[in-house]
């Protein structure tokens, strides 16, 4: 969804970058772009219009992306989805959104905007500018925004397509509607993206007016960028959307009750953030292990922690740690430094054709490593078991599986802290339960 006066064509460049990966549905709000003739300009009516478009499609799971004006509409839709227990809406991406509270326009800015594009003027205005010039001034903010010429020309034409009544309605009414109390707090995953140089709806305003509604929202600041982020920085925009989709997909691997527990105010924001980051395996740095060593490592990890699909990637964080050079504060004297120890041990396993062995033969090979306690092989295999199990059990999917409640102890800013019932068999009502016996 788009900004005031624009249309969904503002997303053309971003869509081109994302289309191979995602299904993207573009909606013009009533009065704008291809919906210029559609009536209904209040926030509620715009939300109705979007909802009916969504309902006409067969969507099982989707996110809303709203830019500026439509960000406010997206927040209202998220509130409605929550209140009607509609769990198809998975997340919100708000790009320099209008806040749910009245937008802090000065009266001067309001009247200036009404003069600028409130009526179609065939003739030049008092400043001698025609509609096209004024649309261009609006898009480029009098040439302050860094938008390619061809994109600006397309956007200016879209501005001229809008129904001036929709423009006037938003400035006089829609932007003044106060939805703050009705939107309240929304716990669904959210990303708020703001341009560093956006003076009206930039990072400080989003922190003050929007993020308080989104306890699971993350704020991303786009450097050297103003308000029309999709047209100014389409590549960055695509990267943010991809990362958000990756976050949602990863969170979907956690059973819904535990996911809701993690999103609840039992869990401190910092703990939640750490667990969310752990959902996405780190990139595997090159030059730490050869492809054969890496494949051997993965095969050994599959025997140490057998996992039904979808398996957690235990190798990536182990290799990332080897690359970081930060260990755990000690190593067995019989072993060389970690990176060397892994390379040498994996080479020996590979030389024993570990990858081509049957699972039972792989197990026998690993068991033989442990046969001589205290030997370098046994010590390395012990280190590998510890590394594997650490990555496995610290993953939110495993914490969900064992029904672990400890991440719910809260923190300095949460309403609840610690436990009130610590005797066996008397869990507190909020504590998750194990999903496997």
């Amino acid at each position, binding site marked *: 969804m788009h900004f005031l006066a624009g249309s969904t064509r503002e997303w053309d460049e971003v869509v081109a970058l994302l289309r191979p990966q995602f299904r993207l549905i573009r909606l013009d709000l009533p009065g704008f772009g291809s919906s210029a003739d559609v009536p209904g300009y209040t926030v509620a009516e715009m939300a109705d219009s979007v909802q009916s478009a969504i309902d006409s499609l067969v969507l099982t799971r989707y996110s809303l992306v709203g830019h500026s004006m439509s960000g406010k509409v997206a927040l209202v839709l998220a509130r409605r989805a929550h209140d009607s227990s509609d769990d198809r809406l998975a997340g919100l991406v708000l790009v320099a959104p209008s806040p749910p509270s009245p937008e802090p326009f000065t009266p001067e800015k309001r009247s200036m905007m009404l003069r600028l594009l409130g009526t179609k003027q065939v003739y030049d205005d008092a400043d001698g500018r025609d509609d096209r010039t004024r649309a261009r001034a609006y898009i480029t903010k009098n040439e302050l925004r860094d938008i390619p010429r061809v994109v600006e020309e397309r956007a200016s034409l879209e501005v001229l397509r809008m129904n001036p009544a929709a423009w006037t309605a938003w400035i006089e009414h829609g932007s003044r509607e106060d939805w703050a109390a009705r939107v309240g707090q929304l716990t669904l995953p959210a990303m708020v993206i703001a341009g560093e140089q956006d003076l009206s709806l930039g990072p400080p305003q989003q922190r003050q007016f929007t993020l308080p509604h989104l306890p699971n929202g993350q704020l991303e600041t786009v450097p050297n960028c103003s308000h029309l982020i999709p047209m100014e920085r389409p590549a960055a925009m695509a990267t943010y959307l991809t990362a958000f989709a990756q976050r949602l997909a990863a969170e979907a691997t956690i059973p819904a009750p535990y996911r809701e527990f993690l999103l609840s105010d039992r869990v401190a924001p910092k703990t939640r953030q750490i667990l969310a980051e752990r959902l996405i395996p780190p990139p595997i740095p090159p030059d730490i292990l050869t492809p054969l060593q890496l494949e051997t490592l993965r095969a050994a990890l599959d025997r140490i922690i057998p996992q039904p699909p979808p398996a957690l990637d235990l190798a990536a964080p182990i290799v990332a740690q080897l690359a970081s050079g930060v260990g755990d504060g000690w190593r067995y004297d019989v072993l060389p*430094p970690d990176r060397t120890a892994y390379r040498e041990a994996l080479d020996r396993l590979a030389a024993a054709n570990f990858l081509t062995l049957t699972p039972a033969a792989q197990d026998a090979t690993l068991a033989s490593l442990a046969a001589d306690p205290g030997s370098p092989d046994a010590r390395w295999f012990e280190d590998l*078991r510890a590394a594997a199990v650490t990555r496995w059990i610290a993953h939110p999917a495993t914490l969900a599986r064992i029904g*672990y409640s400890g991440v719910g102890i809260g923190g300095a800013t949460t309403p609840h802290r610690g436990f009130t019932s610590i005797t066996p068999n008397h869990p507190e009502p909020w504590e998750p339960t194990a999903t496997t016996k």
Partner: protein
Amino acid sequence: MGTHRNHQMTAMKTYPQNEPVDVIIIGTGAGGSPVLAELAAAGLSVVALEAGNWWNPATDYAADEPHMSKLYWLGERLSAGDTPTVFGANNSGTGVGGSMLHWGAFCPRPDPRDLRLHTDFAVGHDFPFDYATLVPFYEEVERFLGVSGPAHYPWDPTRRYPLPPVPLNGPALIMQRGFAAIGVQTAEAPIAALSRPYAQPGYTERPPCVGCGYCHQGCVFGAKASPDITFIPKAIAAGAEVRANSFAHAFERDPQGNITAVIYQHEDETHRQRCRAVYLSAGAIETPRLLLHTGLANSSGQVGRNFMAHMSTQVWGTFDDEIRMNKGFPASLISEATLRPPDADFAGGYLTQSLGVVPVTFAGMVARGRGLWGQALVDTLTQYNHFAGIGAHGDCLPSDRNFLELTSEIDSFGVPIPRIHFSYGENETRMSHHAERLMTQAWQAAGARDIWTLQRSSHTVGTCRMGSDPATSVCDPFGRSHDIPNLWISDNSTFPSALSANPALTIMALALRSARQFLSVGFHNP
């Protein structure tokens, strides 16, 4: 994060580097922070150098074990010997507050007999003073930190704790049941976490423990006593300066051999702070490492010798009950009934405690110590909510086999990394077997199934022992170096024997005692 400055107190005094301060203290843990507070309160100009960060628990801590490994000393150490001891999370910390940022706050005093092991058993090494010498300092530390404990301590009728005990959690209730069944006495453990709101001169009110179970990952709520919220604020209010992210690695000395400046790295720059005296409080690994690296204070040849670690064997079992051992204070029950067991075939003794640990710690123990992997490992860990443990801490005799030495591997500061040799002797092995038998019986009596034993050692003790004879000890009974009159040591390296109790309380008591001695004689040559 990563700051040099205090996050809360903007009013910290600072001292110029080119003017000598009275005392530099290297390390801000159990050994350094009480000295810092004492000397500052007496009006001395004191600067503490801390290798790690100055964390803000409210914003820097999380309920996540891998993340909180930032509180551990992660510089590499080599573990050698037949029973290599583990560092990092096991016993070594970094940050303003030292390893007490992640200590368990299990806070018993040693048994009076532990200080005279050689007198009683003709093995080991006596402390150069008796238990009664330390009692006033134990009481002072317990009062200042706010130790919670039972109204009547079964093994010391004279003892009074300033606060009532913290509630017993699942593993503690099971241990209570199991020990009662086999006729062994237990009590609520002395814990340096608050059972009531508490304040002391030097720090503002701290809230009571909420039983979150993350003591070993740093207490976000301020209920657990760590130096950053007790001794350090007291010291700063009295005029001390603390410099975080400052790793000391060299000394300058005058022709008489006295230390005149400490050289340290801070944010890739080398700094030099002039001083009149130095306290070395970097712990039983870093203290001897620095002395061996600089070649100081070792005319006795004792620096790095007699490394000790507690026999800390644990017994674990699975219960039908849903225990959720992460809840409540992790080790809330104690027994001192085995400090001198009548059927012992060893010198000294051990205490026992109930155990609950958080999942990554537990998983590492199962994968390393129990040796499980494959489906058996997964099936075991999946029952996390049904486990409870019990553990011992037992005395360890000093041995020529057990020592710290420098290797040829160099760290990022250019200082050689240490290798620590540790092998159980006959005494530790016998004591471990005794503890294993007793704890297994208790767990059987409590209804555990699938009972197994984890062999481990914990705590770092020894390596710069104190004594009256300069030929056989590194420092005098107050921690003053025999060789360098203006160098003092205050940490667990000075212990001549390991004691059976967790060391932090004794480190703090010795620190207060040393600081008082420093104030009376520190600027006079012996």
